[in-house]
């Protein structure tokens, strides 16, 4: 159910963010439902097999969607009771999302074009640098809860909300925001609306996709954004999440999740209006900064405990 919700909401979130950007930039915008209309159109188009590509190229969109779906199923978005609890580990979730990225990078390399290789190379550089920050921030979060299980972290925060304003938690949140911006390919790390070869990362890898395959990739990247924002929301602002399985609590959980994701998306979109894309080789500096924040968070959780 959670997965269906994420699938349904993800394109709307992207539409909302585009709409907010458009309004702030003085344009009318295409409407919140435009990504869904795009997907419908792409799905009806003919499938294309670029010459010289292999099964890796064809399987990559499926893997990308599947990894995100699994995360959407297991992570505590609406309720703290995970569908498959033994998979709802923060490390496993991070690794699953990385697996999707790897599939896409291999597909980019598989095309044998300069663009594909370029995108894959840049994406892999970014992911290699994102990983330490991500995991150290996870450590900062899990030290308090005594576990890296997502549901446990979320419920322990619910029981002890005072922790949220502790320096450790705030620093970890700041570090995670930077990491999520990098992982989902938003400004200032990557510009999702660019097709300029000097600056594209994600778009370069998916340049050869068309029709239903492209629809899957678009859907998956929207879902990844939703999943990351949902995780961020529930790790640091868990209120409203259902702790029991009653319909009322679940409904409240869904509503709370929608509001939180929409708010975070709006803030992200509004922030993007004021940002320019960083040079690729300045990105590591940004990520190193977020790594230091994460390390400080762990130190704070130990020394200020």
């Amino acid at each position, binding site marked *: 159910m959670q997965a269906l919700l994420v699938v349904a909401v993800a394109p709307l979130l992207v539409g909302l963010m585009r709409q907010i950007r458009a309004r702030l930039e003085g344009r009318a915008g295409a409407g919140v439902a435009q990504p869904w209309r795009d997907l419908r159109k792409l799905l009806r188009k003919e499938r294309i097999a670029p010459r010289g590509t292999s099964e890796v190229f064809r399987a990559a969109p*499926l893997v990308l969607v599947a990894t995100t779906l699994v995360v959407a199923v297991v992570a505590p978005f609406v309720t703290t009771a995970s569908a498959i609890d033994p998979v709802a580990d923060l490390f496993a979730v991070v690794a699953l999302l990385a697996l999707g990225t790897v599939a896409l990078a291999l597909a980019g390399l598989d095309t044998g074009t300069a663009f594909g290789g370029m995108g894959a190379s840049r994406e892999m550089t970014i992911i290699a640098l994102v990983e330490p920050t991500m995991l150290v921030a996870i450590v900062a979060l899990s030290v308090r809860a005594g576990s890296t299980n997502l549901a446990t972290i979320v419920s322990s925060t619910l029981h002890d909300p005072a922790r949220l304003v502790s320096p450790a938690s705030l620093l970890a949140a700041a570090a995670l925001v930077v990491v999520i911006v990098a992982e989902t390919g938003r400004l200032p790390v990557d510009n999702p609306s660019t097709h300029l070869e000097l600056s594209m990362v994600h778009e370069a890898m998916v340049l050869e996709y068309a029709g239903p395959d492209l629809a899957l990739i678009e859907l998956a990247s929207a879902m990844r954004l939703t999943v990351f924002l949902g995780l961020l929301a529930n790790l640091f602002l868990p209120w409203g999440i259902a702790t029991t399985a009653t319909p009322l609590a679940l409904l409240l959980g869904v509503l709370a999740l929608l509001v939180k994701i929409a708010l975070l998306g709006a803030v992200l979109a509004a922030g993007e209006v004021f940002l320019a894309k960083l040079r690729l080789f300045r990105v590591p500096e940004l990520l190193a900064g977020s790594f230091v924040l994460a390390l400080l968070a762990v130190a704070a959780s130990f020394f200020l405990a």
Partner: protein
Amino acid sequence: MNLAATGLVVAAALGGLSAVVALVVPTRPRPVLVGLGTAASGAAAVTAGVAATGGQSFAVSLPELLPLFGVSLELDALGGLFVAVTGGVAVVAGIFGMSYSRHGIGGRSVQSVFPLFVVVMLLVPVAASVGTFLVCWELMALTSLLLVAAEHRQRPEVASAVRWYAVMTHLGLVSVLFGLLVFAARAGGDSFDALRRADLSPGVAGVVFVLTLLGFASKAGILPLHAWLPRAHPEAPSHVSALMSAAMVNLGVYGIARVGGDLLGGGPAWWWLLVLGLGAVSAVYGILQAAMSADLKRLLGYSTTENMGLVLVGLGAAGLFASSGQRVLAGLALAAALLHVINHASFKSLLFLAAGSVLHGTGTRDLDALGGLRRGMPVTTAAFGVGALAASALPPGTAFVSEWLLLQALVHGVAVPGLATAIVMPVAVAVVALTAGLAVATFVKAFGVGFLAKPRSAGAQQATESPATMLVGMAFAGAACVVLALEPAMVLPALARVGGVVFGSLESAVGGEVTLRLEGVAGVLSPLLLALALLAAVVVTVAAVRAPGVRAARREARLWDCGGGPMSARMEYTATSFAEPLQRVFDDVVQPELDVDVDHHEESAYLVRAVEYRRRVADRVERRLYEPVLAVAWRWGEAGRGLANGSVHRYLGYGFYTLCGLLIVLVVLR
């Protein structure tokens, strides 16, 4: 005789028999017979090792076999684990080697040394006295040296690699020798039992530990004593590389666990902080060099340094926890380290065999000249893909499980009271994470550039699949990878027993059948459920895409080439260009040498005729540490040359003066 004893004796006998067979049979059936014999010997060793980790033990003493100290062997759970891993690698390497016999590898000497190498590797973890251990250790070095030298007639680099390996392995031996001799002298006996009972002062124990650690670390390819590894492993024939990289390096870890944990009985925290620190530095440096490398086997060699580094991080953390009385966490960290040893053996043998198959099919191991192998070599491509997934610590791969356990141990270690753990553990987590991230980039490069896309050379264009036995060898290794990835709970009870040998009475750290459930601390993970969930999600996605209204047929289309006509393979990204952003990011660490030559037209300095770009990523540790030492040795040699001018009179004179000098010293001192 129990199963452990029978298995071990059969393994040794089969290995010895194969060596003799290799000497007497003609060239044609030789590789097949030796390969079969080695594989059978390995299989027997696996049986023995599994039986030993299951609780059986076996001890034998043969005082007449060697003069002075005799031979004494004892197989316990710790030794059994390493016997089983070595045996497993021997099985796949033996099967692979049956049809891998070009370039003089099929010769009598190489073929007879190969099974002997396996047998001495099996005997090292079984040795139960200092004398036996050192003899086996040295025989292991000598036999592997002969195997590395197998192709020295074909390629001049082999000779250089052999020299490096010979010198470094013997320096390591000297270090271990001194350490163990000091230990045995203080203990008053050279059997491991006597060593266990010995009561050493902390200073002596520290000296013994550091000396043996140096030797064992150099065998495991740990920084800064790794210089031989990325030279020797690539130059050996590929099935020998697999044996060295997946089985031999493990014995360095075995040595540290045996001497530091079992014989010296734990020891203070600084020992294990040292181990952890060495491991962390090796892990990051190894994978960084692997990420820069464009030579497939060199990349795999550096990845061995990385993985052994991760194992030492786990071992060091285990020792640290044990020294502060955290038995549960110590058990967890040790289980993670040992599971990583097993996992690394399975995926590294698979990767090296696949690299050997690529070398067989294309004649090159330069990633910049490979590409497009999936058409000519589909099985090898699939095998390397499985191995790369396993090595890059992503689910559902093998390394993911052991790195997850390692991270759990480190994360829970943060909460352990004590300043050292509070500082070390988060940094260790960051190191493991950075290593994992870089490993992903490295193996995406190796697989994506080497096997996908368009062929970059004629050799890659005409690649054909390798003979069936090579594929069977890879299939076995691949199956081991898959099983270990999905059902690691199978080996974990055995690891708990091994942990008991190393740090004494550790609680079982991980339980559960399908789901790994950490005991004593919170943490659950089910690799099998994760893989199933992933599979289910793929099926759902496929079903959704195949829904009515979506066209199923695919139309072939041109790649986007900016309208510039068909793209050639020269326009592709290569391994070097793939790693360029990473190289820039870590510029200060790797310090690459760049050389750009711009050639101008005569008419104008603004018109460029040709640009030549060369990049070489040298090993920085090597340049800073080894080159000065080598330079001093060289100068010493130069100075010595003046003394030795070939005159016999002079040499007799030297002897005379030395003798007189010694006598004078004696007179003065007495």
